[in-house]
């Protein structure tokens, strides 16, 4: 891949990312579906990088999924956003770092709205005061958690035990990135590398020694579409979008799909399983499917964290093929044990996609 031109474009889309003292807000989907992923982020930030990351027990959903399904009005989500900002300032922090890409898009949209339409901000402040007696200030700095990992990617790589290198061949593993639409499609200047050539995940892949694979549908949506997934009648929209991406990346035979959005991480994983069950097809050559990881899961794996304590068994497409290629040891006997080592049995095997247990 020729990088010169893209590097020039990426340089036009760089943003200030705070160095320390972060206020962390969780993602509804990520914590419900991949809770170990968020835990891994905090372990990296606190234990490996020695950063101050504060999480308030009092923060709530931003209501973003409700907003994008039109069951939460704009006035309400602006006020919920303002409340989370108020909690940050009350805790003595000003660097806001959401785990969710939908939320990141919501925060950028709301901040942009307040900038261009001050009357919206004024009304929001009045609503917040009336509803909660709180006052708020905008963040001094805001970055998605994938931006934070990007910022420290070289430090993380230096401390890592593993690289994205095929142990048998010595060649870089091939990785496709999938950036959540709301990371930069609405506000390109808020994403590292903008919307057309985002570098937030590509930079991480390169830092770990992998090869970034460009493919035709790299920027296509995973198909979440909010109402298009939540309503069963609409779900064909969702799986069709993911299928379009899998078909587009298939000729390049990637070893890994890397994501930064909780929803995308879910759909890239689960729709591979569903397509295998529906059509008997996987998009690798060995019936395993293509492993899918979030940026923080990949960083944790490279650092040598235990895959099962990171919750990688909560992916329906097995991660074992990736670990085998890199040479990361793992113990299948521990995969489905409980927190106290108790035997919890094993899940049923899917019919058409290999399953390690």
């Amino acid at each position, binding site marked *: 891949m020729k990088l010169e031109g893209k590097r020039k474009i990426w340089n036009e889309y760089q943003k200030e990312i705070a160095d320390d003292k972060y206020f962390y807000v969780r993602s509804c989907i990520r914590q419900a579906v991949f809770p170990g992923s968020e835990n891994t982020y905090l372990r990296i930030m606190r234990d490996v990088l020695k950063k101050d990351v504060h999480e308030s027990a009092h923060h709530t959903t931003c209501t973003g999924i409700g907003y994008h399904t039109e069951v939460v009005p704009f006035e309400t989500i602006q006020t919920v956003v303002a409340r989370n900002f108020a909690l940050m300032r009350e805790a003595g922090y000003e660097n806001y770092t959401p785990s969710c890409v939908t939320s990141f898009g919501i925060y950028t949209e709301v901040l942009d709205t307040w900038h261009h339409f001050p009357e919206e901000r004024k009304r929001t402040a009045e609503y917040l005061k009336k509803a909660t007696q709180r006052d708020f200030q905008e963040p001094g700095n805001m970055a998605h958690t994938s931006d934070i990992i990007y910022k420290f990617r070289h430090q993380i790589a230096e401390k890592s035990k593993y690289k994205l290198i095929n142990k048998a061949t010595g060649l870089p593993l091939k990785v496709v990135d999938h950036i959540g639409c709301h990371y930069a499609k609405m506000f390109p200047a808020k994403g590292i590398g903008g919307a057309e050539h985002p570098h937030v995940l590509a930079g991480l892949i390169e830092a770990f020694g992998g090869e970034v694979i460009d493919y035709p549908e790299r920027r296509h949506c995973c198909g979440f579409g909010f*109402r298009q997934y939540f309503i069963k009648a*609409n779900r064909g929209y969702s799986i069709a979008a993911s299928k379009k991406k899998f078909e587009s990346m298939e000729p390049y035979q990637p070893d890994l799909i890397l994501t930064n959005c909780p929803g995308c991480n879910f759909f890239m994983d689960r729709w591979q399983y569903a397509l295998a069950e529906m059509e008997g097809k996987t998009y690798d050559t060995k019936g395993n499917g293509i492993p899918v990881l979030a940026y923080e899961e990949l960083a944790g794996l490279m650092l040598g964290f235990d895959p099962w304590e990171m919750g990688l068994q909560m992916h329906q497409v097995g991660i074992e093929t990736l670990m085998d290629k890199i040479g990361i040891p793992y113990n299948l006997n521990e995969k489905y044990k409980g927190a106290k080592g108790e035997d919890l049995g094993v899940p049923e095997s899917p019919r058409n996609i290999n399953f390690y247990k």
Partner: protein
Amino acid sequence: MGQLFDKLNSDVRFVEGINGCINCGTCTAICPAAEVYDYQPRTIAHLVQTRDDSIIENLLKSDTIWYCGECMSCKTRCPRNNAPGLIIQALRKLSIETGLFVESEKGRQQLALKRMLSDTIIETGYCVHFDHTTLDMFPEQGPMWQWVQDNREAFLPKVGANYKGNGPGAMRSIPQSDIDELRNIFEVSGGLKWMETIEEHSAKKAKEMGLEIGEGKSSEYFTEVYNRNNHAKHSRK
């Protein structure tokens, strides 16, 4: 200009979303919804530019405005910096406020979404709660997920989750005082009124259709709007 257009034009998202569309079709070329539905964001931009209330009313009653997935890919690529996705958001708001959303199959889905999402928000503080991610609603979660659901208490602490626990952490129980604040925000800012509007218009439509609307996620009307898909009508021709 008419009353409906004036209402659209009072939404800041509409103001931000349209700046003289030149009908180039770039948004349609990039749109994931246009791949699967009989839908063109280009047409949406074109139609609202007519400022004709009868045209806008037809849109508010139609399935068309509910096809968009709000991915906002259109925003990135539009050469005039329009955002049909924002226009759609303003149209959907107006469709709910006028009650016209119940006149289309896709619009009627609002009842299910309200009960799945906004009810969950003001009850738990989350849009999506682990307990609600069951395989009967979301079968693509796969057998692994059934195992996680079955073993939640013993397994989730292993991956660092604080399932229904106090204090910070993934899946924690959000304190009642915070839920109360969230509910107050919904009350003050119009969120509860919005939810009531969806229920009221849906109840009238359910009666007209001879379906029991009940409460929760198992009524006849909920089941109808959650599952009904007139594939022949909606599919890309």
